């Protein structure tokens, strides 16, 4: 039986750098603001979650703070988008990967094509959040009555409310998948904490990227 390692094992290939310090800070600002937005938004979305407003100092403050965190998220996510979009274009191996999603879910990804820095699931998370955050920003501004009430008609505001709530739920669902993947695939989290992954992790999950990084095609 092969011993199992979690990223800090006895036998471990030298690490491969995956994210710069700036990229990690950028990611964590995005992550924190998304969670705060989800909590403050859900508080207004469903009466049974209204108690989340206590986290933000009451209903009025929750209503005031939420859109400002939205601005932080929009700017921060734009940073991530510019950093990563070039690596997220769809490739032929991504379609094959998606067709064999069952194997991936069953922890049997060995037979699948070698992947670049991101797999199809990660790419879908990337593009999904890109589109949803754009719609959330636009509809959020329409709902931001304090400053923008006079710029739209009532039916546009109503549409914005439905779109905002719908996209928020979709974004939260994608967020759950994203976080779960980081918990499930061991050795991933250190990419966003320490900035590097073990050679074995890179070889197993993103071999094409690993070859590029070490210059061994």
């Amino acid at each position, binding site marked *: 039986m092969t011993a199992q390692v979690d990223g800090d094992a006895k036998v471990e290939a030298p690490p491969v750098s995956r994210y710069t310090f700036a990229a990690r800070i950028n990611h964590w600002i995005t992550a924190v603001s998304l969670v705060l937005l989800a909590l403050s938004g859900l508080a207004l979305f469903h*009466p049974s979650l209204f108690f989340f407003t206590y986290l933000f100092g009451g209903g009025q403050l929750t*209503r005031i703070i939420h859109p400002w965190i939205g601005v932080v998220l929009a700017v921060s996510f734009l940073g991530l988008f510019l950093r990563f979009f070039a690596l997220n274009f769809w490739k032929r191996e991504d379609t094959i990967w998606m067709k064999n999603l069952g194997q991936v879910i069953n922890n049997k990804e060995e037979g699948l094509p070698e992947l670049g820095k991101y797999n199809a699931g990660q790419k879908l998370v990337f593009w999904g959040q890109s589109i949803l955050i754009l719609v959330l920003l636009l509809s959020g501004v329409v709902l931001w*009555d*304090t400053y923008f009430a006079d710029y739209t008609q009532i039916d546009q*505001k109503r549409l914005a409310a439905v779109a905002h709530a719908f996209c928020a739920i979709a974004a939260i669902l994608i967020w*759950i998948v994203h976080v779960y993947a980081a918990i499930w695939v061991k050795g991933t989290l250190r990419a966003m904490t320490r900035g590097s992954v073990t050679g*074995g992790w890179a070889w197993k999950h993103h071999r094409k990227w690993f070859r590029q990084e070490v210059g061994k095609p």
Partner: protein
Amino acid sequence: MSVLQALDLRRRSASTVAPPPAGKAPAVEVAKLIDVSKCIGCKACQTACLEWNQLDQPIGQTDGIYDNPRDLTPTSWTVMKFTEIEKDDNLEWLIRKDGCMHCDDPGCLKACPAPGAIVQYTNGIVDFVSENCIGCGYCVKGCPFNIPRISKVDAKAYKCTLCSDRVVVGQAPACAKACPTQAIYFGTKADMIVHAEGRITDLKSRGYKNAGLYDPKGVNGTHVMYVLHHADQPHLYAGLPDNPRISPLVGMWKGILKPLSLAAIAFAGVFGLMHYVTKGPNRVTEHDEEKAVELAGRDRP
């Protein structure tokens, strides 16, 4: 505005309401009836509203028409809306007292996310409870009549209370009391409908074939009703909606979307947990690490 002890609640925003205490006599539904055909546009009602509710409407600007202020504001809960209709050789001057209609199925209350910021009493009056209001403006989106206004001063929503504080002690609303032509009546909804029928018969006998009562069914009737000479064309009266109802967009937003969303989020959480429990984590093995060394060596850039 606050919840008066003698008024039991029928609905409360973002909450499930307990039924009125046992042993209480069933509530009588009240209504205000505005007879547009008897209104002379003197605005005594508008003034009485400001006075009774101690509202301070800042002096504004006039743009040469009678509507003053131009529209409802956070401090003007009722405004007379004047419309001139020229047809053939005839000029008709329609004057409608605009304000909250106190829908039996109130869209503002349905849309409000703050528990207890909007209530409906068992007598049918819809009231805003300012201390619970968070100023999000959802009520504005829920209302089919474009009534609530958010104050720029305290960011809370305001509108006509139907003088719930007067009604609870057996008084008619201030506007009804002040009207010199008795164009505004107040009483039980049943009585108001009977009274309206008399007025409509009278109007019909005087040539207004389409005279009728405005008590729109789309919002399950209202607790403020109009007698209109042209009940077939409510929109003539400064855009009174012909068929008001809660927008289907609001219905979706506040209806099916909420339980579906929470179910989806719960499902995602449970699915993740089950996956972890049954399939376990995806681990990098020593074999993978050895392969990495094999490919790239130990001392690489």
